[in-house]
């Protein structure tokens, strides 16, 4: 059953009253009057039995005699009211009519109302009905609050899922619920497989295309490649212009992160092919997705100012993937050697060639690069 259904079900349950009285005649009398009013009444004779009954199935109300063998009614009331699990259960304390001292002690113990012995039928019913109404109103309000909270969470989740992976969205919502702030953890060093995808030649294409068309085309493109990223549980860290940064093995460990990144790249290119065909048919300039994937250590954390913050990854693996993407031709995937070593088994039958040691802009030393035609 859904959380929402659970929340509304609360109001449909029967009204249950626990009568705590060691006098069997009194207990039977109270139970009979309550039953006559359509309530379900259970009777117990002492404090321990009362605690056990409440723990087994919390009643909607307790009618509690003050004079009990062992722990008295005040002690029972105090204990139940100090326990968050039973604090909301209304308690009617049954005292002697003239016993004002007991009433004061009862108020201190947290009793919600009092009933005098001898018990008058009309008084019992009136008090119980009033408390029942209050209790049911409180329950209804609680169910509504719960339902609104669930809907709010659902709205938040849907909103977040437009920007981050569904799994990350769940984590953010859980962080919000528990700590009030998502991504509270300190920046951390992580092992990452970074994928950069870019629409090659798109900048040129935009020079000849109307602005509103450009937005529509970008949305078509991002729809395909973000779907592919999420399908393989990648986390999208940034979207700028027509390029996309996707991290694997972060923030959740993925033993097969390199394979996931490669499959996401294959799906991005394959998924984009029909979109590209329609663009070409409309006479657009030649374009296609170019992708770079590199692995290594990176830093995961909140980067920015308190006013604008980005939860992202930075480091050599990310820079290398970006440079590889810039080198990639439309429909080409460039892999750094460590990534290639991890995925070579799944590339059988595909056109793979070594590009040898390549010097990447802004990076000392060279990187051994492999090209996969997708």
């Amino acid at each position, binding site marked *: 059953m859904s959380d929402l259904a659970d929340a509304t079900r609360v109001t449909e349950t029967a009204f249950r009253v626990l009568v705590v009285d060691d*006098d*069997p*005649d*009194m207990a*039977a*009398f109270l139970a*009979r009057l309550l039953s*006559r009013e359509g309530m379900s009444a259970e009777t117990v004779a002492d404090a321990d039995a009362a605690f056990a009954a409440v723990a087994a199935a919390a009643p909607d109300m307790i009618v509690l005699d003050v*004079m009990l063998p062992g722990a008295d009614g005040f002690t029972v009331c105090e204990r139940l009211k100090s326990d968050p699990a039973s604090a909301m259960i209304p308690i009617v304390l049954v005292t*002697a009519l003239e016993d004002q001292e007991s009433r004061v002690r009862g108020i201190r113990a947290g009793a919600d109302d009092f009933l005098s*012995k*001898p*018990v*008058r*039928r009309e008084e019992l019913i009136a008090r119980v009905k009033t408390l029942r109404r209050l209790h049911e109103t409180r329950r209804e309000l609680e169910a509504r609050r719960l339902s609104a909270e669930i809907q709010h969470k659902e709205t938040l989740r849907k909103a977040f899922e437009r920007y981050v992976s569904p799994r990350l969205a769940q984590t953010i919502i859980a962080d919000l619920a528990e700590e009030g702030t998502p991504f509270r953890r300190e920046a951390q060093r992580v092992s990452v497989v970074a994928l950069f995808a870019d629409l090659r030649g798109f900048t040129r294409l935009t020079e000849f295309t109307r602005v509103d068309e450009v937005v529509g085309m970008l949305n078509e493109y991002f729809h395909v490649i973000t779907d592919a990223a999420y399908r393989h549980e990648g986390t999208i860290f940034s979207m700028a212009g027509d390029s996309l940064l996707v991290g694997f093995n972060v923030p959740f460990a993925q033993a097969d992160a390199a394979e996931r990144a490669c499959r996401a790249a294959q799906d991005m290119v394959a998924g984009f092919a029909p979109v590209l065909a329609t663009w070409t048919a409309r006479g657009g300039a030649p374009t296609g997705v170019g992708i770079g994937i590199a692995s290594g250590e990176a830093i995961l954390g909140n980067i920015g100012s308190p006013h604008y913050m980005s939860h992202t990854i930075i480091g050599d693996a990310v820079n290398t993937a970006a440079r590889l993407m810039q080198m990639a031709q439309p429909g080409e995937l460039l892999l750094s050697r460590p990534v290639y070593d991890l995925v070579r088994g799944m590339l059988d039958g595909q056109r793979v060639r070594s590009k040898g040691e390549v010097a990447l802009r802004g990076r000392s030393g060279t990187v051994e690069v492999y090209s996969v035609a997708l």
Partner: protein
Amino acid sequence: MNDGACKVTVAKDLEDLIPTFMKNRRKELDNLRIALAARDFEQLRQLGHRMKGVGVSYGFERVSALGKSIEDGARSGDRALLESSIAQYDEYLAKVQVAFE
């Protein structure tokens, strides 16, 4: 005690509870006698207090009234009051007639 004082009208929906109620009152009378013989005033007070609460609840005003006398007698250690109240209780239980409506 006149016979009128021994007639009690009880709500119809409590009818099936009355046989047990009366049985418990007779047991209560035995316990009062035992407590009186043992001069156990605390026990007498508790028994009187219980009679006071349960009597009128069921419609037996006399049980509550006698309960109050017994509770008072136990509190003040008034043995004569206790003996008299318990004797009246015995007589009442022997004569009481219950009608339901």
